[in-house]
């Protein structure tokens, strides 16, 4: 037992997952782990959990405890099965066994075994288990003659050692990882192993054989067959939803149908058995006006079909990055469904929707639509999908595509500020903030959850930036036709304290802090922004005395970013523009000097002010 105080409450000495795939495709998984408690605060550390669903049975669940200097004891009492998902209805459970009364130095051993009838023989094995691990091993045994393909995702791991039909991948000294601000979550920083298994030719097994992504797509098509049928009710709903568009313009039609689904169907996830993959019939979702992502995607397909617009479902991972291996299809690669609508060659899209267009290869250009998230406007992609690989579910034509990684022009914050300077040097300010893309989604999300709380947050920001401002007006337009969210705030700011008789009026107050920052001194991991973006301030200061000096324009550029200012003056009116463009989202530790340069430039340029003489 290592001396001293440890940052991790326990360490894994050995962890082994052994998967035995049987002749009929049944998957037997045995998980064994040995862990050592490193703290006296050992509550909750003595339990092991083995997740399973209704297609699996837990056959073995055992635990042993060796207190320091004492004999081993075997776990007593019945195992506990608990629902572990926050879905509305779910069959996702975990079997818990273990011990309550542990000591610092205690060794705890778990062994579980389950038999599962998988829906398809492709999955991802994660080597990170939330604690440092000395040895983490994954062992796979298949019947003779079966093929096994594997690929590392999110990094590179070791090649397997093979012995007959058994393959073993082993990682050593997997470190503990912390969550850091503006960073990837720990689970996204450790390599995972994608596995795909196919039986020998001619062998019939229960699980689907998805040897490549088109096969995966075909499997889904079989599952969803008939669910997107156009019933009279769907036809009527489509006509009603699309009536205001005149039914001609491609984008207008897609937008109208998508808004109907996005706003009209409440999100409700019922994930039981194959229901985790199989959508409900579109007609049922329409009648219920509730459903999960795949239900919504299916209803949208049916509505569009009713109007003669073809579309596809698209499988993607909403929460983790780099989940897709090009040649190794795995069910766990995806946990979310959206839509792709082929864009007719003669159709034109509004400029703001260009960030939602993916190259579908022989499927053509695809307009990507996510109707699950109420705050995401049609023509925009949420930050968590940006740049991800996804599978277009087009039956045997199904293919992987890369979702657009974002364009700084489309994720914007524009603040137009008019400041009227009074003779007493107080300010009457009107600020119109227009948010586009991802920033707009965040505004809508907050405001729709509670408009009152949103207003409070806006007022707090105003008072932080303009000391002691009193907000007098606040209005919103949360979703314009081009997907913008607009907030207008009117407020008064008392005269700033004069220094040496001079008063300073900042021209871009708060601009330098719009781009989130974090301490870099000891940071070892990349700083990651959600999306590339543009932040623009346009300030008009009215009532500027003739003698006041106009600041000089500035331009600073770096690798993947730029900041500019410009100033024009007409009589007592000064127009000032500050714009920051961030076209990259990731800064590795060796690129931190570049990031510091960006932040310093944002400080320097946003500090522009007019100095008013006594």
């Amino acid at each position, binding site marked *: 037992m290592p001396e001293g105080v440890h940052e991790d409450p326990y360490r894994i000495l050995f962890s082994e997952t052994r998967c035995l795939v049987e002749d009929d495709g049944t998957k037997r998984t045995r998980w064994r782990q040995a862990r050592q408690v490193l703290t006296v605060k050992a509550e909750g550390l003595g339990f092991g959990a083995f997740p399973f669903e209704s297609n699996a049975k837990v056959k073995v669940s055992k635990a042993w405890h060796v207190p320091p200097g004492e004999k081993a004891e075997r776990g007593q009492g019945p195992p*506990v099965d608990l629902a572990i998902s926050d879905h509305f209805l779910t069959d996702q459970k975990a079997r818990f066994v273990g011990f309550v009364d542990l000591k610092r130095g205690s060794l705890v051993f778990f062994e579980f075994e389950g038999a599962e009838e998988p829906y398809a023989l492709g999955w991802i094995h994660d080597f990170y288990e939330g604690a440092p691990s000395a040895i983490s091993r994954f062992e796979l045994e298949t019947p003779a003659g079966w093929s096994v393909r594997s690929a590392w995702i999110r990094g590179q791991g070791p090649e397997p050692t093979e012995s007959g039909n058994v393959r073993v991948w082993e990682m050593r000294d997997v470190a503990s990882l912390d969550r850091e601000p503006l960073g990837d979550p720990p689970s996204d920083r450790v390599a995972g192993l994608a596995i795909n298994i196919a039986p020998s030719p001619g062998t019939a097994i229960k699980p689907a054989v998805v040897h490549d992504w088109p096969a995966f797509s075909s499997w889904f098509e079989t599952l969803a067959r008939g669910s997107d049928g156009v019933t009279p009710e769907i036809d009527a709903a489509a006509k009603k939803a699309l009536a205001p568009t005149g039914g001609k313009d491609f984008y207008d039609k897609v937008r109208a149908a998508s808004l109907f689904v996005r706003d009209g169907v409440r999100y*409700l996830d019922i994930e039981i058995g194959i229901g985790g993959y199989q959508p409900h019939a579109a007609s049922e979702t329409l009648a219920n006006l509730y459903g999960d992502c795949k239900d919504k995607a299916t209803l949208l397909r049916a509505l569009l079909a009713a109007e003669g617009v073809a579309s596809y479902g698209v499988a993607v991972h909403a929460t983790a990055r780099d989940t897709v291996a090009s040649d190794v299809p795995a069910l766990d690669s995806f946990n979310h469904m959206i839509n792709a609508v082929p864009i007719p060659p003669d159709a034109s899209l509004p400029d703001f929707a260009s960030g939602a267009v993916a190259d579908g290869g022989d499927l053509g250009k695809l307009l990507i639509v996510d109707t699950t998230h109420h705050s995401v406007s049609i023509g925009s992609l949420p930050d968590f999908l940006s740049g991800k690989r996804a599978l277009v579910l087009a039956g045997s034509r199904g293919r992987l595509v890369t979702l657009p990684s974002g364009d700084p022009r489309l994720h914007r914050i524009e603040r137009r500020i008019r400041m009227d300077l009074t003779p007493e040097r107080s300010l009457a300010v009107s600020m119109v903030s227009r948010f586009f893309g991802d920033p707009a989604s965040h505004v809508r999300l907050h405001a729709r959850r509670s408009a009152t709380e949103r207003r409070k947050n806006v007022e707090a920001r105003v008072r932080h930036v303009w000391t002691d401002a009193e907000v007098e007006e606040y209005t919103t337009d949360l979703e314009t036709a081009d997907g913008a969210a607009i907030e207008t705030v009117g407020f008064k700011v008392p005269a700033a304290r004069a220094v040496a008789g001079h008063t300073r009026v900042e021209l871009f107050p708060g601009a330098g802090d719009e781009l989130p920052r974090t*301490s870099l001194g000891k940071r070892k991991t990349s700083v990651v922004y959600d999306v590339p973006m543009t932040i623009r301030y346009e300030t008009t200061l009215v009532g500027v005395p003739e003698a006041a000096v106009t600041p000089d324009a500035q331009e600073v550029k770096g690798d993947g970013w730029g900041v500019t200012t410009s100033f024009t003056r007409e009589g007592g009116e000064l127009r000032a523009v500050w714009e920051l463009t961030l076209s990259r989202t990731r800064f590795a530790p060796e690129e931190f000097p570049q990031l510091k340069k960006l932040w310093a430039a944002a400080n320097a340029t946003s500090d522009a002010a007019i100095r008013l003489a006594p």
Partner: protein
Amino acid sequence: MKHQDCALCVGLTILLACGASFAKSKTDIKIVPGPTSMSEEEKAIQSDQAQGIENAVILVEETVKNDDLGTDSSVAYHLRAKVLSNEGRALANIEIPHNIKVGDLKEWWGRTLLPDGTIIELKEEELKEQSLGKVGRYETRILKGALRGVVPGSVIDYGYLYSGTDWSPDSIRVPLQRPWPVRRFRYRWIPYRGSKAAFRVSRAEGLAVKSQQDDRSVLVVGENFPASAEEPWMPPAKETYGAVSFYYIERSADTGDYWNLEAKRIDRVASYFCSKDGPIRDAIRSMSIPDGADLKTKLRIAYDWLASNVKNTTLRMLEEQESDAGDDRNERNTAKWVLQAKEGTSTQIDFLYMGLARALGALAHIVRVPSRTENYWDQAMMSMTQFAGTLVAVREPGYPIEAATIVDPGSGLPFGEVPWWFTGIKALVASSNGMSVALVPPTLAERNVETTKGRQTFAEDNSSLHVEWSRTYGGQQGYLERRNLRSITPGDRNVRLEQLCGASGRFEVGRAEPIDLETFTAPLQIVCEGELSISGISEKVTNYTFAIDGAWIARLPDFPSKERRTPIVFEFPRTEHHTMEFSAPAGFEPSSGPLILKHPSPFGTYTLSIAPTETGCLVERDLILTPLTVAPDQYETFRMFLSEIKSGDSSRLEFKRSKESS
């Protein structure tokens, strides 16, 4: 309905009469489905932020909970609500929180009333079972259902009667106010007749709520409860929003004399702990108390002796906890053992101090006190779960309890100081005669002093600013932080210290260290050092201004709203002394003259002094904030005072290019 007189809100014990009458109870209510059409009043309800109406309005919520069915209990429930937004539709996702494995759903209805008059039913057989957990053969399964077709403007109406042997808690707290308004509320409770039971309506001042009871049950009814709305620095939710608690009392408890009996029990336990007086006398002898010392001096010496000689195992440094081999200390709950082991838990040290004080001739009593971050003591609610801490009240014989000094000997605070979350509220004083009430006094601003001294120096090329300062916290200032820092791992401690030093993308902290964190009774002291990213000073710049605020000045609370409904409650009154030397940038000299601001107010004083020096400027800032609470009618004045402080803190220093360099 008339507003409830507060006197009627006190808790009442329901006395259960044997052979209760079979006549219809006056509290009886019948839970039935709501109308299958929307009333004109319901149709007219719309979102109105000014009235706190956002996503939904509860039109009716009514419950009958019957625990008096032998081994069974039943719950009848009805909810009718108007959905006003997409977010409000979540109310249509229904979970019936009773174990269907040990009971039955006897009745059910659920329907959506659409704005056009259409009714969509959800039948009982459409409810789905969800397993929550299974241990051996015991499983908990509940029913869930989703009402269909819900759109903003719909009314949803559902209800059920569940009957079974599902576990029933000893106490239930039902909030009267929610994030949405409630138009009509009824709750009837029929407790198990074999147990003593009580109920308590709390914080219902201003709410239209009333209660009725008979020999078997209680009915609480109300209407037009506004939505709960949060304000910064408000009292805890339990002391702000209306609620009704239904609870059982220990069967042996005398409900007419509950607090006296509890107080006597506490005193018995503490007195037994100290019943062997030999070790206590030995301890007192080892304290070297001067001959002729008065009682108060003796009590202080004993207090300090305990802090130095008996380790509080509850508040040890994590390093101490981790190096402890562990033994059977918890099995030896006596003063003798604590004195021998030279360590004990917070409560054991309180008991021991009580014994020492009594042996020194003082009247000493154990005090039980709530944490005011959670709740205050409600005497009408007969439950010891309200209390969170133990203190000791000591006084000279012959003096009333009001003259007592309340101390917390295991806390590491000086004699007479107790952790701030126990201050400013009433507490229970336990004696062999029963209970009495004491106010734990709030601490004074002059005892809670934070002193910061530092220097800010520009780099030779004016590209960055080096900032260093040290801060000493006194009294309550930094007390909780210090406890936290001692209890976390070294890695987490470093992260937290950097946060305290203001680490950010603008300020890169190079040094963030505590001083003497190991000493239990020492105040928190930290030393911070780092580089502040600045705009840079080009050769063109002739005048350079620089804001005086930064991580070295704690951010003031902000109150954006012009109106205030609840009192402001601070942690403690405070004093801040800040002294910071600013060097002029290279090639610059101060151009602003001296500045002195002084803002006295009923809530304290703020003083800011900026004086040019040979090398730059010296900024001295003093803030005394005296109130623990600010009443709503003082809000505007207080807000103006804060504005003055913020205005002062936003002052800037100005430097001009010196003649030699220009």
